[in-house]
């Protein structure tokens, strides 16, 4: 198995990194939870240090699962021939899935050890910062224990295996002689479960954020309900990535040059190639912009005090952690999906496309993905923050302050463009 991993280093590195950061985040929360449950912890801190890590940890686990499914899916798309080979010599779909689940478990286990150590250190650091900000009592000391952090790491391992199983399901179940790169969207019926899931997530998210409207401005539930709503809506929009791409493609100015022409066809016919980008960029923009925007509303209108400051710190922490996580997942997946197009780029060159033309085609596709993600992420975040702003200030205006959105959009778009340009140039030149 390790031999096979060595042959697919790119995919293994991507899954390993996602598993590593996932383990760090979940273990950090476990360390804080351990402290909250410890006997040495003082009064008020007990409830805070149990609720906060459980709520946030739950979200982190969900997002790690989501990121792993996508990462494994992208990594396996580069191995369709190997999968077809296994199936042709008689492997059942289950055997193929088990093989990749095993591989992913190996990679995640290797990543878990440093992840566990880093997460425990990180927990101490976060508590130290909270203490310095006066959010916790001075007498509360970091006491993560070992049981909870280890459970957290094992949880991420389990999540990785589940993700590999889900992520490899489609490829393992297709006919081994099917086209290695299905150009036409196959099986229309398969879109239904995804669309229903997306609709449910959006309804739940928007419902949760609208519920805030009836609440008192100082009610802590306003924040507690809007934060998760932002994440739910972003995940729901991610699930609609293919539709968002098609819409953006239709609205895009139809360029007459060859690069734009081919890019447009690619996005329409093979949205799968651009989908990982949209998935992570929508998450990145939606969650970062939403959380930053909420915090902006809060900062402007809440009376400064212990609780408000506490929540501000937590929210910024969430943005930084999830932002970093999704930026890494975005980079990984984008690089992997570009590397898989080597043969296609080589064909372009054989037919007479210059390197510059091929790169322009790729960047045009990435640009369409960025446009779709940025618009969807921004609108989703705004929809969640408007009720929050109304509850806090009596008017929706504060939800439209541009800075949080601009920050998230510029950072996300810059990462995507820089990664696509560098990775694209390298792959095209060596194709």
């Amino acid at each position: 198995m390790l031999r096979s991993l060595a042959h697919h280093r790119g995919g293994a590195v991507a899954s390993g990194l996602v598993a590593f950061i996932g383990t760090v985040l979940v273990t950090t929360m476990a360390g804080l939870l351990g402290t909250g449950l410890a006997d040495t912890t003082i009064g008020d801190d007990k409830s805070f240090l149990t609720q906060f890590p459980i709520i946030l940890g739950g979200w982190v686990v969900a997002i790690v699962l989501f990121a792993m499914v996508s990462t494994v899916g992208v990594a396996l798309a580069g191995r369709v021939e190997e999968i077809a080979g296994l199936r042709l010599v008689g492997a059942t779909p289950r055997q193929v899935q088990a093989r990749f689940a095993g591989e992913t478990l190996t990679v995640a286990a290797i990543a878990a050890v440093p992840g566990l150590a880093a997460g425990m250190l990180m927990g101490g650091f976060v508590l130290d910062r909270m203490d310095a900000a006066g959010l916790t009592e001075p007498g509360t000391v970091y006491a993560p224990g070992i049981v909870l952090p280890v459970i957290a790491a094992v949880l991420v391992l389990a999540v990785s295996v589940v993700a590999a199983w889900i992520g490899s399901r489609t490829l393992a179940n297709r006919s081994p002689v099917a086209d290695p790169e299905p150009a036409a969207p196959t099986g229309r019926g398969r879109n239904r479960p995804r669309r229903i899931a997306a609709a449910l997530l959006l309804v739940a998210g928007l419902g949760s954020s609208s519920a805030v409207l009836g609440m008192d401005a100082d009610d802590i539930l306003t924040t507690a309900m809007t934060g998760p709503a932002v994440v739910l809506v972003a995940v729901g929009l991610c699930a609609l990535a293919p539709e968002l791409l098609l819409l953006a493609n239709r609205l895009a100015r139809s360029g007459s040059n060859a690069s734009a022409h081919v890019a447009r066809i690619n996005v329409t016919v093979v949205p799968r190639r651009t989908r990982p980008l949209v998935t992570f960029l929508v998450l990145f923009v939606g969650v970062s912009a939403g959380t930053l925007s909420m915090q902006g509303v809060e900062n402007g209108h809440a009376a400064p005090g212990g609780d408000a400051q506490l929540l501000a710190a937590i929210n910024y922490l969430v943005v930084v952690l999830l932002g970093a996580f999704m930026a890494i997942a975005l980079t990984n997946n984008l690089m992997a999906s570009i590397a898989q197009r080597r043969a296609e780029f080589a064909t372009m060159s054989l037919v007479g496309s210059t390197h510059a033309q091929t790169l322009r085609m790729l960047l045009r596709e990435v640009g369409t993905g960025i446009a779709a993600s940025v618009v969807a992420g921004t609108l989703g975040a705004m929809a969640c923050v408007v009720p929050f702003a109304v509850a806090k200030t009596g008017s929706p205006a504060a939800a439209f302050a541009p800075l949080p959105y601009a920050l998230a959009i510029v950072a996300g778009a810059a990462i995507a463009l820089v990664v696509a340009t560098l990775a694209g140039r390298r792959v095209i030149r060596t194709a």
Partner: protein
Amino acid sequence: MSHPSHAAAPPVVRVRDLRVRYEGEAGPVDALRGIDLDVPRGSFTAIMGPSGSGKTTLLHSAAGLQTPTSGMVELGGADLSTLDATRLTKLRRRRVGFVFQAFHLLAALTARQNVELPLRLDGKRADPRRTQALLDRVGLGARGEHRPHQLSGGQKQRVAVARALITDPEVVFADEPTGALDIRSARDVLGLLRALADGGQTIIMVTHDPVAASFSDQVLFLADGVIVDHLRRPSAPEVASRMATLVESAERAANTVEIV
């Protein structure tokens, strides 16, 4: 310089002392060991030779798809070694049509879009009637909207032939264009190439099939990286018997090496 009107037209492809060496892990391979070649405009040349004799390497080097180790290639008067990658690409897509041994069609594009791509890359609009006429000519008039995965191997090959012709190139290179075709479609493609040559199109084709070679004006026989023989106005039986001799001596050479 004067242009004596009685001299023959300059060759479209001129190759001088062309050498290609592949540096492999198991030692270097000399795929081409000094090739000289003049291909007259409007001629139909077939290249034959045992597997591994360097046919694909010769075709790729002559078409500007790969840089030779040494020697000179001139295409329509342009010395390829003086061009950078971008200018070489532009020259290729304007003046060269290439039918690849492995098709190389883009999976996301329909047959029609694949055929028109070289024109678009060159910033030109494709005339839909011309594309349709070409598709008709290769027998795929009704398949224009199909994508490659919806076509058989032979149909893909014919799309590749149509794509190579869309720009009206000075030379068409074809690497075993009939390798994946049944007898009938092979005849159709060869008949098309013959008709194009009669109309003044220069064609250089690699093939293993003596019948295919018999459609050409002259056959060059390649063995171990050098041109060892040629045949004008070939007939299929003649080509077959020369090839048999060639393969036999190649085998004998290989056996000698093994014994030593």
